[in-house]
């Protein structure tokens, strides 16, 4: 959506004053188009040109921050419809909804539970992002009291849910500048809600009943009131309509450059579903397809862990596969006489091999070599998974002290390196394993 060099040139003073450091305005424009220069280098650029250039260089989906400090959540700024086209950048925030009609004790214990939850996967710590507190009581003072109680217990970002601006104002007074998401401004209350968003420098969600044109109209009004950090709720709740609405919004922003709807979205997976298990399927749908914020009505580790795992999967950069840490892995409590297998640290290779070994039930040592995230054949071709590397890893991870034999099984795909490996590991027997992970269980039975 950026402007070309010539389009930028037309907006510049065309005086060739050289103060920007470039010989001509045209040269400067070309550098700007290539993002190798900053517009601020031109002291004479008009405000009008500045606005036009900034608008053109703004991302098609605005990056919106909820919360402050190290727990803040950033959503939006996505550039593609399909992750394979580049990558998805900002994983959807997972929030758990609590109502101010719970007893204070129940409420506080739920706040603690969500705040304390954390789970590790492939060396990464995964956590839900925050809480959505709803003014179900209808009472402004109660809402304020519950929000204050949550703030006293957690630094996680909050979503404040209330349709009455008075209740919202009461809650915002208790959030001391922590930029919670205000949910939501509608056609009826947007002026008051926008005023609160501006006053508290908080992002604002806009809700409509399914009509995208009407939603865009509210966006225009709210932007006119000076509030820019917006989140959209297209207002549909069933699975099909939500998929369609979020697809439309993503396409409008990316393909039609429709700026009024170029904002992240929010979905409520508990609305329209009957059980925690069904809610999880809707959350999964929205992790894959285009949600910015997902508000869950259930909190349960048995659901949260798979959803966090899915989010990690979908938001993995396809060009930078996740690597597992190299090292000597113990599978099914291996003994000194258990077999020693070698593989690479490309996550998919590792998971295939480790999964098969685990499935076989045979205690096994698995030496994972640092192939810089490459698979067996690619790593071998690139010199990242060769005899020297394997021999080095055997020493580095102290393999000889763990086992009482000198046999190492290499992947069948790199059988050609067995000669070299014999030279690198004198006295060792090099065995060639199967070419595919799926044949490992059968191979291990022959051990």
């Amino acid at each position, binding site marked *: 959506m950026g402007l070309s060099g010539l389009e930028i040139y037309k907006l510049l003073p065309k005086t060739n004053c050289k103060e920007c450091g470039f010989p001509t305005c045209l040269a400067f424009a070309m550098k700007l188009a290539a993002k190798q220069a900053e517009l601020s280098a031109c002291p004479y650029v008009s405000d009008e040109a500045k606005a036009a250039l900034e608008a053109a260089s703004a991302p098609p989906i605005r990056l919106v921050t909820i919360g402050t400090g190290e727990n803040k959540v950033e959503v939006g700024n996505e550039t593609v419809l*399909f*992750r*394979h086209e580049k990558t998805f950048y900002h994983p959807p925030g997972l929030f758990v909804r609590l109502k101010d009609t719970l007893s204070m004790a129940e409420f506080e214990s739920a706040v603690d539970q969500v705040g304390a*939850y*954390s*789970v*590790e996967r492939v060396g990464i710590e995964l956590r839900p992002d925050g809480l959505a507190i709803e003014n179900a009581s209808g009472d402004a003072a109660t809402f304020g009291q519950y929000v204050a109680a949550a703030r006293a217990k957690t630094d996680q970002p909050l979503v404040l849910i209330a349709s009455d601006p008075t209740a919202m104002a009461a809650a915002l007074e208790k959030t001391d500048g922590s930029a919670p998401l205000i949910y939501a401004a509608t056609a009826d209350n947007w002026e008051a809600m926008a005023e609160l968003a501006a006053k508290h420098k908080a992002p604002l969600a806009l809700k409509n009943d399914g009509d*995208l*044109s009407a*939603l*865009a*109209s509210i966006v*225009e009004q709210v932007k006119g009131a000076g509030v820019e950090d917006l989140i959209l709720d297209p207002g549909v709740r*069933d*699975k*099909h309509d939500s*998929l*369609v609405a979020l*697809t*439309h919004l993503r*396409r*409008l922003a990316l*393909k*039609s450059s*429709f700026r*009024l*709807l170029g904002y992240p979205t929010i979905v409520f997976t508990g609305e329209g579903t009957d059980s925690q*298990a*069904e809610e*999880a*399927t809707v959350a*999964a*749908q929205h*992790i*894959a*397809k285009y949600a910015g914020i997902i508000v869950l009505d259930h909190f*349960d*580790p*048995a*659901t949260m*862990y*798979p*959803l966090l*795992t*899915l989010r*990690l*999967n*979908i938001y*993995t950069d396809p060009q930078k596969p996740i690597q597992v840490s190299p090292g000597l892995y113990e599978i099914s409590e291996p003994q000194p006489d258990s077999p020693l297998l070698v593989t690479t640290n490309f*996550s*998919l290779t590792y*998971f*295939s091999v480790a*999964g098969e070994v*685990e*499935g076989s*039930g045979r205690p096994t040592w698995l030496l994972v070599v640092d192939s810089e995230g490459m698979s067996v054949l690619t790593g071998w071709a690139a010199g990242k998974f060769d005899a020297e590397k394997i021999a080095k890893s055997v020493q580095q991870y102290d393999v000889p002290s763990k086992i009482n034999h000198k046999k190492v099984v290499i992947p069948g795909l790199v059988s050609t390196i067995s000669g070299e490996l014999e030279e690198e590991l004198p006295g060792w027997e090099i065995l060639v394993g199967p070419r595919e992970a*799926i044949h490992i269980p*059968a191979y291990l*039975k022959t051990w």
Partner: protein
Amino acid sequence: MPVTVNVPKEKWAGKVREVTLGATTDAGGTRKKTVTVGGESTLPFLTFEGEMPNPPVIAIEIQDRYPDDWSELLLTAWDGVVNNAAEWAQKAEEYGADIVALKLQSAHTEGDNTSAAHAIDTVKAVLKATGLPLIVYGPGQPEKDNEVLVAVAEAAKGERIALGNCEDKNYRTIVAAALAHDQLVVAKTPIDVNLAKQLNILISDMRLDLDRILMDPTTGALGYGLEYSYSVMERLRLAALTGDSMTQQPMICTVGEEAWRAKESKVNEGVPAAWGDWAKRSANWEVITATTLIHSGADIVVLRHPDSIKLVRQTIDDLMVQ
């Protein structure tokens, strides 16, 4: 000031082929019903710009021997039928499966190493026990697969069963058997768009009609490579819709097998407390893997747990609402 939003619509040039599994008595088989998959001229469920004539369907995986490597949770759920493929198939039909996916595990050379004649008996018994269309998998060893699947293809002539897996190594024999006895094949390739396309080309070069090929681009479970399957399937489906003929096959995903292999589903000993309740977690593992792949274009999901059928069906039904 009113704003008018014109939603962008894609104009797709291509369409996924329709493939029908099973044959009723009028068509020379004995199935009570047939199942047709594919036919999409739009991305999954985006029916505002194209058609999705057939919903994704659910196959239930059963085996012809006691699956001693399966999770205790599965064995309990299928209690009483896991020793008998015919009873198991009947139960799967009762629980609402659209298709029975029978794996001839007992033929595995390192296991019971049962014969082709045994495979024929099993398939006949299963066909008798259920009126659903059948997918029959060999034990996953190319040579033994050839042996049992050729025999099964002949014995089930007229039933329009799908033979799997038809891979790079053994496609010739399996395709020849499908040609000779009017069956379908499941063409399986390892998570790669070009390999999937290549195998479809090789198979169609042998003159098997394209409406007899299901493609299995290989399933990675949640947390175990799901994102690779997801993206390869999206790419295959986009290629199909833009008119690349050799990618226009319906896709099948072996969700149950992969999801229940994950440590998260399989066991509950020595796992972190943060993983939560075992039964709920493992159910989520299978259902979320299935849901995600349905959104990337799966036409058939092969599941293992009976309770997953209801949830995945609910998802499909709700997404098919226009």
